[in-house]
């Protein structure tokens, strides 16, 4: 069922029409098949790029769509409702491009942003490592200065669509200080950049995940990879600040995707309950089931309200870190609960792979884990509360 959205401009409504058309015709029909075969739909990202949907929240002078986060996030939710893996990968691409947009020098922005946002390129985000997940300061990948270059060695983990990426935002250690020793680098991949398979850059086998299998997740290994020094974003030691500022925005993206996924599960549950007859009538006529559907709808709309609100704070230039964490926490928990309930509404059929409900449930789980576990989100929220009370 189409979500009734409040958007700030007429062009945002036109954009919504375009996103819905592409989602219905190009994403939804393929999702189940590509998820089952773990096929990364690179062509879908080309199509989204051509339509301008990979650059919506970036400045127009950089080649972006100049759309507020409030609009970008709602488009992302629409994409995720049709196919959440694609939504998450769009969010990751935005995250990978954001640091260049915010922290790049004028020269760096002019040099790289137009192609990064031009639509044919896809960006990956390499922060986590096998031993450095929530504990970002435990990053061990090193970037050692050697003349006009850095020599990078180390292993990055959980990199979304790494093997399919055209560029990567890499965080590596340039100093020993756990937090102050991190730096960020723009890594072009392929022609004119690091060549995969040449020895200095390689990828692990795709992780055998529970869900979102169409989105390839893998290790990325750097072995004496030489990165020109002018590819560093910000100063040496700015890495942690850059990573954390991008994560706030990334969390909003994940909140929007989780909301979209929950919406898809709700739509399926309502549709099924209206059709499925037991005891001589549609099961949707039973109050016990109606209450379930009502709770599911309440969870979805609460999640949506929260991320839209946080997005509006961001658009207004106000602090939004706490609200982004609340949005991520609320939306991912809602996705888990709503998708689980959708399986319940579909009963035995919900437990089979013939209906998407069980896939939604598997997909929902990771939204509570990535882009900061929900336990980390609670830490962010609590610290912000206590900072404001002077603790």
């Amino acid at each position: 069922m189409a979500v009734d959205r409040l958007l700030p401009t007429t062009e945002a409504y036109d954009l919504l029409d375009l996103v819905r058309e592409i989602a219905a015709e190009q994403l939804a029909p393929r999702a189940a098949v590509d998820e089952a075969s773990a096929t990364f739909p690179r062509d879908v990202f080309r199509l989204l790029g051509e339509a301008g949907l990979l650059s919506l929240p970036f400045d127009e002078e950089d080649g972006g769509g100049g759309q507020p986060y409030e609009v970008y996030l709602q488009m992302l939710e629409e994409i995720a409702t049709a196919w959440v893996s694609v939504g998450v990968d769009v969010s990751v691409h935005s995250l990978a491009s954001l640091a260049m947009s915010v922290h790049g020098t004028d020269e760096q922005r002019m040099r790289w942003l137009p192609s990064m946002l031009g639509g044919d390129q896809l960006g990956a985000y390499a922060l986590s490592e096998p031993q450095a997940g929530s504990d970002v300061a435990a990053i061990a990948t090193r970037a050692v200065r050697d003349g006009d270059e850095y020599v990078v060695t180390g292993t990055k983990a959980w990199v979304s669509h790494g093997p399919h990426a055209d560029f990567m935002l890499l965080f590596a250690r340039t100093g020993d200080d756990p937090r102050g020793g991190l730096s960020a680098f723009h890594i072009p991949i392929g022609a004119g950049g690091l060549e995969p398979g040449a020895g200095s850059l390689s990828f692990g086998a795709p992780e055998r995940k529970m869900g979102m299998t169409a989105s390839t997740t893998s290790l990325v290994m750097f072995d004496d990879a030489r990165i020109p020094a002018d590819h560093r974003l910000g100063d040496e030691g700015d890495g942690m600040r850059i990573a954390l500022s991008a994560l706030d925005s990334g969390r909003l993206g994940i909140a929007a995707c989780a909301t979209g996924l929950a919406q898809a599960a709700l739509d399926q549950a309502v549709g099924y309950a209206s059709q499925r007859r037991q005891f001589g009538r549609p099961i949707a006529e039973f109050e016990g089931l109606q209450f379930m559907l009502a709770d599911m709808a309440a969870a979805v709309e609460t999640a949506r309200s929260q991320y839209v609100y946080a997005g509006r704070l961001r658009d207004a230039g106000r602090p939004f870190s706490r609200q982004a964490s609340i949005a991520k926490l609320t939306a991912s928990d809602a996705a888990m609960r709503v998708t689980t309930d959708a399986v319940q509404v579909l009963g035995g059929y919900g437990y089979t792979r013939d209906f998407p409900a069980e896939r939604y449930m598997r997909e929902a789980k990771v939204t509570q884990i990535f882009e900061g576990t929900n336990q980390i989100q609670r830490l962010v929220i609590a610290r912000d509360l206590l900072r404001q009370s002077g603790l």
Partner: protein
Amino acid sequence: MKIVVCVKFAPDSTAPRKFSSDDTVDRVSVDGILSELDENAVEEALKIRESAASDAEVVVLTMGPEQARTAITKTLQMGADAGVHVVDDAIHGSDSIASSRVLAAALERTGFDLAVCGMASTDGGMSVVPAMLAERLGVPQLTMASEVKVDGTAVTIRRDGEVATETVEATMPLVLSVTDAANEPRYPSFKGIMAAKKKPVEELTLGDLGVDAGEVGSAAAWTTVESIEERPARTAGTIVTDDGTGADQLVAFLAERKFV
């Protein structure tokens, strides 16, 4: 080169069809869209413009109520350069003959080297307007093209028929209609959406075109819809239980309805 694409604002063919109290298709209270088959006409026009040796312009022409503007907007978002919208209350209820009268007058006014149409509308589905336009305008018609080649002012099409494939050629100005096999219509892009806002759309009345209101509309139509009855819902059908005679029962069922 001036390419004018004639498009129709039609009820969404995936939504339930509704009729007005005068037995015409309801185009006002239902969700209308650019008739899907006209997207192929727009795409072909854009491709011809993109491969043209000299400057080419794509103008999109429609007739219909105020809401029909959304069909023009969609084509402008896809990349058309300008729109012409004939809006006049007298047009309501026009048949194909009257529609071709209005569109031909508009084409004469705008001028054209190539008038491009889709293979049929998704509501009326008559496929006759392109031929009528060519007749009224006194130009050649190349209809139902599944492939189009333009070389200067010469246009060659492939026309896939049931018994033969024809190659037909004509010289501009001419009327061209393309099938849904001719191309894959592009999606609008966000840049296209933004650019569409600045593109001109001219609104014309019958008076602007020199068409008398008496020539068009329900009163002038050559046919009248006497009544409309909604088709009854599908019945449950017959379930054949195979007790060893299943095949015989199926044959009997089909034979009874003269399918075999």
